[in-house]
């Protein structure tokens, strides 16, 4: 600082003996150069020994040249004067460049740390201890590393779930937002899986450990995000090629700048002009901006994605998602829940609905059939009182029978009632036909040999599907549905969620073919699926998105995994990819423009036209700011939040 101030105060400088002043400046500069700037020189030398050149090479050569010239002018001013040159010194240039570049490095380091904040936060979620139930029944807190497969772990309200497992006792609501991005707590009961790092809210439960360490969901997510952050986006190829030859090329340009200025400038000024422009070229060039342009945006974006339950496999997947113009949805499990749910509960005339539901649920509670589970879920949702059934018997392929309050109850398909000799009243038959026409599965209920009601069961559309599809369409993306259902059912579901184009009666083996068909139309297709038979289609698509409850095979084939079973994740993934690639393009544009304009200006290209030369100190300021600008732009992605309707 005193150096720069002195140079800006010519009146003071005139009063001081020039030679003594130069020695004074030398003394002030030496610590800056040898202490603060030492790392540039050692790094440049180490790189030189390995035939590698980096940013430090440019700083070391630039400041080293300015310093050596100044040193010569200080020690041997007569030599310069004999040749008609003023023995000018550039100590302020040397010191200011080092100070500004160091400042830039500090700002860069601070910003860079923030790019990996999301992944660090994910890693920090891991619980430190677990309360394990010993065989004797006593509960002991043990470090998480000592928890083993098969251990029984207790989780009390407000505690973190220690690792992955299955609930054996108790029920609760668990906040899984940190893994899935789902803001509402998820209800958990006996038999449900729980995941390490999630937060238990209300109840207390015990779970059996099924996964520890690197196998847990959290560890897998961290690994996936880390892998993605190490990947290279195709968009960066040009920047990578330029980075590889950047520094030596700039050194060559600087040398040629020196030669040209020395040869073309007036004799009395040629040496200082050649030197100043040589230094300016070296200092303004910023390989860092190029190097930081893509990876920093990818770092922030993949971390941000994980925060919202969108796991991006690699940078290429992100880039592909950006190009998507068509989203193909496999209906079951994506638009719909992929599990049966009761849509219609129709008691026959004169039958009290609440009592009938109690009776039906009592029988179905004993069954393990998915349709029976749907009925039980429905009864629970209606808060039907639980009563018990006796003499339960499953009749394979037809239904079940049991006794409830002394009444013989039959629940099953039409054949079950037919074989029991039970006639369907005309009204019940008509209602059954209506439900069948809507592609619903019909369960018939008979009590004491009389048909008393119908239950319509179907795969239901998720509440969020229509809104998410609308949002995708608003983003300019055509949403196409495919399903194994007949065209009527397909048309009904498509209409319900606002999809105009669909493929019906698609066999599992034909899914990949439909993706190809869309690609043949020149579309960039994102395929969204969840099942094993979706894997070929996910792999065929330009980008595959596997849905949360999906299978490992599907996730393996997908470029993006959505932790939540919700189409909103597709919107988030595509929106995030668009914002990320836009940021990368801005960064690359800035980095290329900065260097392609900065270097010629520093070389003195404007001098013949406007008499303008770039001070090396200004060059240092611009250089320090350029990489910080790129980083700051990438960090803007931290404020990403998914668009919602």
């Amino acid at each position: 600082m005193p150096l720069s101030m002195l140079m800006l105060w010519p009146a003071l400088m005139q009063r001081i003996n020039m030679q003594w002043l130069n020695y004074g400046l030398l003394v002030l500069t030496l610590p800056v150069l040898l202490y603060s700037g030492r790392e540039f020189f050692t790094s440049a030398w180490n790189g030189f020994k390995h035939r590698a050149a980096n940013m430090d090479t440019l700083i070391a050569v630039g400041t080293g040249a300015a310093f050596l010239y100044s040193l010569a002018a200080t020690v041997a001013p007569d030599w310069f004067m004999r040749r008609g040159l003023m023995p000018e010194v550039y100590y302020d240039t040397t010191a200011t460049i080092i100070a500004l570049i160091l400042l830039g490095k500090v700002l860069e380091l601070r910003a860079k740390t923030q790019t990996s904040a999301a992944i660090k936060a994910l890693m920090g979620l891991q619980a430190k201890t677990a309360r394990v139930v010993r065989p004797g029944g006593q509960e002991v807190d043990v470090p998480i590393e000592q928890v083993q497969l098969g251990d029984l772990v207790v989780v009390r309200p407000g505690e973190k779930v220690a690792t992955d497992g299955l609930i054996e006792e108790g029920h609760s609501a668990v906040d899984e937002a940190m893994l899935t991005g789902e803001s509402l707590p998820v209800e958990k009961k006996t038999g449900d899986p729980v995941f390490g790092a999630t937060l238990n809210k209300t109840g207390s439960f015990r779970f059996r450990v099924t996964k520890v360490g690197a196998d847990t969901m959290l560890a897998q997510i961290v690994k996936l995000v880390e892998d993605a952050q190490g990947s290279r986006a195709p968009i960066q190829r040009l920047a990578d090629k330029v980075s590889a030859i950047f520094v030596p090329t700039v050194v060559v340009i600087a040398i040629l700048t020196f030669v040209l200025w020395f040869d073309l400038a007036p004799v009395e000024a040629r040496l200082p002009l050649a030197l100043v422009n040589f230094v300016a070229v070296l200092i303004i060039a910023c390989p860092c901006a190029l190097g930081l342009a893509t990876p920093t945006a990818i770092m922030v974006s993949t971390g941000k994605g994980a925060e919202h339950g969108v796991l991006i496999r690699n940078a290429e997947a992100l880039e592909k998602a950006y190009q998507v113009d068509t989203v193909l949805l496999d209906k079951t499990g994506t638009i719909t829940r992929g599990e049966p749910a009761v849509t219609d509960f129709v008691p026959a005339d004169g039958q009290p609905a609440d009592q009938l539901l109690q009776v039906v649920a009592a029988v179905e509670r004993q069954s393990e059939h998915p349709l029976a589970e749907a009925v039980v879920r429905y009864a629970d949702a209606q808060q039907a009182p639980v009563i018990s059934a006796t003499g339960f018997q499953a009749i394979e392929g037809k239904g079940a029978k049991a006794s409830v309050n002394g009444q013989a109850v039959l629940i099953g398909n039409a054949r079950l009632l037919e074989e029991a000799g039970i006639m369907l009243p005309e009204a019940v038959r008509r209602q059954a036909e209506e439900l069948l026409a809507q592609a619903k599965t019909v369960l018939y209920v008979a009590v004491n040999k009389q048909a008393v009601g119908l239950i319509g069961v179907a795969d239901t559309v998720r509440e969020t599907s229509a809104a998410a599809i609308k949002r995708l369409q608003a983003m300019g993306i055509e949403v196409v549905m495919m399903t194994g259902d007949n065209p009527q059912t397909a048309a009904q579901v498509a209409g319900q969620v606002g999809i105009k184009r669909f493929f019906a009666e698609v066999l599992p083996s034909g899914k990949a073919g439909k993706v190809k068909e869309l690609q043949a139309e020149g579309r960039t297709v994102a395929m969204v699926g969840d099942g094993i038979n979706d894997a070929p289609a996910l792999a065929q698509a330009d980008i595959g998105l596997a849905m949360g409850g999906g299978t490992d095979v599907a996730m393996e084939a997908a470029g993006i995994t959505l932790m939540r079973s919700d189409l909103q994740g597709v919107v988030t993934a595509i929106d995030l990819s668009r914002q990320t690639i836009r940021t990368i393009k801005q960064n690359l544009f800035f980095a290329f423009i900065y260097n392609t304009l900065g270097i010629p200006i520093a070389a003195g290209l404007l001098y013949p036209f406007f008499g303008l030369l770039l001070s090396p100190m200004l060059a240092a300021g611009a250089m320090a700011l350029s990489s910080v600008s790129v980083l700051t732009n990438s960090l803007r992605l931290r404020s990403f939040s998914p668009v919602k309707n």
Partner: protein
Amino acid sequence: MDIAEIIVTLTGVALAGFVIWYFFFSARQTASAVSSSSGVQEVDITVKGGYSPDVIEVERGKPVQLSFYRDEENSCSEELLMPDFSIRRDLPAFKTTLVELLPQQAGTFTFTCGMGMLRGSLVVK
């Protein structure tokens, strides 16, 4: 053109030629991996302003363990990228970081520092 100009021009051109040759065309330090008793191909790499050795030859289909010892604090080398293997590692100063991978395809795969300035190659045969 006076003598000084001729000298500066010739020196400048020679220096530029030297820079191009030295950084782009001169011979690199190559090392072949040594297979351990367990069949893992092991290579020790020192990171100090660059990678030495910076060309590493390994065989295809056999696991490889690269031990990177970062012998400096300079921030340029703090990150290691092997994009073809989706590997990104922080290399702590004055510590050895192990990187394990299984090369399935023959070819030359570049590894670089975070900004792509320091470069080395993994040659899979």
